[in-house]
């Protein structure tokens, strides 16, 4: 019966050849479409492993005031704009039911760690004329009775803190409050905390000048409130001054200034990627390994250290680094103070707490160095790394920093980040606009996820075209050829039945050849489709089109396409031909059954009528 069935098909060689050719082509299209869809699916899954979408949030000021102040430097009134951020919006206000976070928003502080016995890399480009320390505590005597509304000469009597080269110098001192008309008398001695700058002399030439520094202020944030800032940058020095409370404050300030010079910034994080510099590729692990998700989650005592800091201190992977943390700064980002390429650094926070004491260490632990990172200069403060920075898991700091908050401010792009599902930025913004606070501004960084996702979507679109063409053609072909190879064999089937062949036998005679040719064709077609998929895969893994020399793409990013291997699931490859063959078998069986079900005599009668 099987041979007869095949023989019948071979009697119409052109038609059979067309059928085989069509089926091969259609199966190839279906296999190609199915394989690419499978590849895109696997690629999409990998995307979520490779890419992360982080959002940064910053608070808009509640109001902005146009202010005027007297600039003693230029000897004229200047205009500036004072932005009011208080009360600060808490990071918890971002937690609304409609938004799902992978990592919830957190206003990240940076900790100050006192590293007395370590060598700290210094600023690379420092103003040559100010050469070195800008801040000093000095005992001075005014050359003449004066106020500090304008610049006045004062003679340095004693240096409490700062470079000795200033000894006995006469320096210009400028106040910063034009309403402070306190008199300074030439027969009295004063102690002052000043910052070196440059100012014009009366004859027009420039000279060293000194202005008050914020280091002497108190900016502690305690019990959820800002301590009322004390900005006492001078005091009169009298007999027994340093034994009294006000004198001890100056000695504390001296210690605090010295300690700050020996301080490195420690960045607690939920993931390395949540630090913008790392996320944007401006910083990357050069040696060792990144901290793992598990280490971040369990708060293990491991850290990432800047390559330069490690080099200066002979630190290697696996070494232990003891971090005595003594303050937490929520008010600004560490890059502004600990920056590699600026000589404009200055204190915007005070070094003494509300009790006029230097902050005590609140947490001290040894951390194992797991990786050394390198950072290049970012496009902004926010995507740079501070000098001598150390990254630790946030959960590893088990002590509370509430008594050691040196400053507190609004959420900033550089200190508040969160992670959301890839590709959900629009949904996030829609929900935020409906339910959130309009005083907050967001920016999102997805490492180019949207671009790669777009590419995969286009690939998927192509695959869908292949599949639809294949599917429609398959359905049409199967019905068309079933009609030709089965329905048109009605007379043969009738004769076979009249010759005593059973219904089952007739079915076999009608179907076997057809199904055999179908199976072979589908097999060849699937093979061809899989081969074409290989070509497709090769084409998606071509070498870089663009020269990456001088590029700001870091090594990890450059290999992003390599990180998304487009693999085909074998089960899905096999599913396509199996389903195709099943479909052909079912349709062919229905066509054959319709013929076999009829009575041969009835059929013969119909034939006679014709």
């Amino acid at each position, binding site marked *: 019966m099987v041979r007869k069935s095949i023989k019948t098909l071979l009697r119409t060689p052109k038609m059979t050849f067309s059928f085989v050719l069509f089926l091969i082509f259609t199966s190839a299209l279906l296999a190609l479409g199915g394989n690419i869809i499978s590849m895109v699916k696997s690629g999409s899954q990998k995307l979520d492993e490779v890419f992360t979408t982080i959002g940064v949030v910053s608070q808009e000021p509640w109001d902005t005031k146009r202010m005027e102040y007297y600039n003693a430097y230029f000897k004229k009134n200047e205009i500036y704009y004072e932005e009011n951020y208080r009360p600060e919006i808490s990071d918890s206000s971002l937690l609304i039911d409609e938004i799902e976070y992978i990592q919830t928003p957190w206003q990240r502080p940076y900790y100050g760690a006192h590293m007395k016995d370590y060598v700290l890399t210094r600023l690379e*480009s420092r103003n040559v004329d100010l050469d070195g320390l800008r801040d000093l505590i000095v005992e001075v005597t005014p050359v003449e009775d004066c106020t500090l509304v304008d610049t006045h000469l004062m003679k340095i009597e004693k240096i409490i803190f700062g470079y000795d080269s200033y000894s006995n110098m006469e320096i210009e001192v400028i106040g910063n409050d034009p309403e402070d008309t306190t008199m300074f008398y030439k027969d009295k001695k004063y102690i002052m905390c000043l910052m070196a700058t440059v100012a014009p002399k009366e004859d027009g030439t420039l000279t060293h000048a000194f202005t008050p520094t914020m280091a002497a202020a108190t900016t502690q944030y305690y019990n959820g409130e800002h301590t009322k800032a004390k900005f006492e940058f001078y005091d009169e020095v009298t007999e027994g001054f340093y034994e009294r409370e006000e004198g001890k404050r100056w000695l504390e300030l001296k210690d605090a200034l010295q300690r700050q010079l020996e301080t490195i910034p420690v960045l607690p994080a939920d993931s390395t990627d949540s630090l913008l510099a790392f996320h944007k590729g401006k910083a990357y692990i050069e040696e060792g390994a990144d901290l793992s998700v598990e280490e971040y989650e369990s708060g293990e005592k491991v850290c990432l250290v800047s390559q330069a800091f490690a080099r200066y201190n002979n630190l290697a992977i696996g070494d232990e680094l003891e971090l005595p943390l003594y303050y937490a700064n929520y008010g600004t980002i560490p890059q502004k103070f600990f920056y590699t390429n600026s000589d404009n650094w200055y204190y915007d926070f005070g070094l003494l707490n509300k009790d006029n004491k230097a902050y005590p260490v609140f947490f001290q632990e040894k951390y194992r160095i797991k990786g050394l990172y390198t950072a290049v200069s970012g496009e902004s403060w926010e995507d740079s790394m501070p000098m001598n920075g150390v990254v630790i898991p946030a959960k590893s700091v088990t002590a509370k920093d509430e008594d050691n908050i040196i400053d507190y401010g609004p959420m900033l792009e550089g200190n508040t980040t969160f992670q959301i599902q890839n590709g959900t930025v629009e949904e996030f913004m829609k929900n935020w606009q409906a339910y959130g606070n309009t005083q907050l501004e967001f920016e999102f960084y997805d490492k180019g996820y949207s671009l790669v996702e777009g590419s995969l979507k286009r690939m998927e679109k192509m695959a869908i075209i292949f599949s639809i063409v294949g599917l429609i053609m398959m359905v049409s072909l199967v019905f068309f050829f079933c009609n030709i190879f089965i329905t048109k064999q009605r007379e043969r089937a009738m004769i076979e039945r009249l010759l005593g062949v059973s219904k089952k036998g007739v079915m076999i005679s009608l179907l076997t050849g057809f199904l055999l040719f179908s199976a072979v064709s589908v097999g060849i077609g699937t093979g061809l489709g899989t081969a074409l998929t290989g070509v497709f895969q090769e084409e998606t893994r*071509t070498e870089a089109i663009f020269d990456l020399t001088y590029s700001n793409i870091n090594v990890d990013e450059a290999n992003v396409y390599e990180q998304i291997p487009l693999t085909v699931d074998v089960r899905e490859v096999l599913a396509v031909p199996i389903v195709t063959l099943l479909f052909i078998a079912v349709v062919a069986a229905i066509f054959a059954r319709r013929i076999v079900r009829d009575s041969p005599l009835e059929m013969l009668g119909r034939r006679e009528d014709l």
Partner: protein
Amino acid sequence: MFIFRTAVENIRRHKRKSILFFMACLLLSLIMQVILINLQVTEREYLEIRRSIPVTGRVTNLTGTSSSRLVIPEKNIAAIENCDFLKDKLYQAPVWFTNHEIDSKDVRMNNSYYGLATNSAEATSYKEITWLEGESEKSLSDEELKIIVSKPLLEAENTSLGKDLDLYIHYQHCDAYDVISYDFSKQHTFRIIGFYTANDNEQDRQGADILVPYKAITALHKEEGRRYLMDGASFSLVDPAEINAVKEEMKKTGYLSIAPGAVPSRKGNALLFEDSTFIKTATNFEDNIRLNKIFLPVLLGALLVVIYLLVNMLMQSRREEYLLYRVMGMRRRSVGVLFCLEHILIALGGVIVSLILSMIMGGTSWMQGAILSLLVLLCICVGTMIALVSIGRNSLMLAVQKND
């Protein structure tokens, strides 16, 4: 007219076959349109991103930590200057002026004017520049001794636009360790060709007092047998797609890539391109266009084969009808025209509907769609004619006998 009427009648009579053929033509044409749209949209988007994603570059030190206060060798600046693929070229270096003679060593501490030798007014943060008639930003590319000054300087010097101003230039000396010092000064007369003002919103008050053409300062230094080196340089690409050519030129000049582990220095001998967004996006598009171009001919060829086979099959199924027309006395050519017309009418309907659908999908233009439709129609015609030749070979007597 008779043939046209008969063709329409035949289409109606063979309703099922006509619908099947119509659907096939519609589908095949639509697929081709969609592929073409996809390719065109991708190519169009790619052209757009080449315009919309800027690629900028800047000279940095070897560690990549600094792109200002550098010492940039002259040949490195010349490479940027001579590169035709670059635009918005900006070089700058400080130059100190005084209106009286002083010891140059103290120039930064005395009552001096901080100037920038540059080729572009972009070097200052103050954008509102009032130019002397006939002068423009191009004047900064000259070698003439012209200056643009800040308004406070103009007032302090009690001078005005278009007048000459005598100023002492303090000459640079760059030692073997790339440390810049100033050791002597010389008076020159500069023509004031513009002044700039800062408005209240400009908080950056660190801008230069004077802008002067860098070529002029370089020439003055050369006259004294000195080198005047730029301390910062940046640029952007005219066409980001030419990035490989630009990088090739820069490599030949000797520019290095950033090596973060290197010893920090002030030498501006490395380049950093802000090109990650462009490269990632463009690579994506190039990949897609390449894939589309590889698979488009394959798919087109396959679709054309399908069209031919479909037409052939449909014709073969009507072989007896063809022979009947012939037996009835119709000439071979007339029957051929009749059958061709039938197929063309159906195919025309299919391609027109597909054209409309593709226009609704918003991709291809009428012209391109029409060309593609014509191509489909041509294939159908060719397929029909080949099939007709094949049918025509059958013997009429055979057909008559078979029907008997």
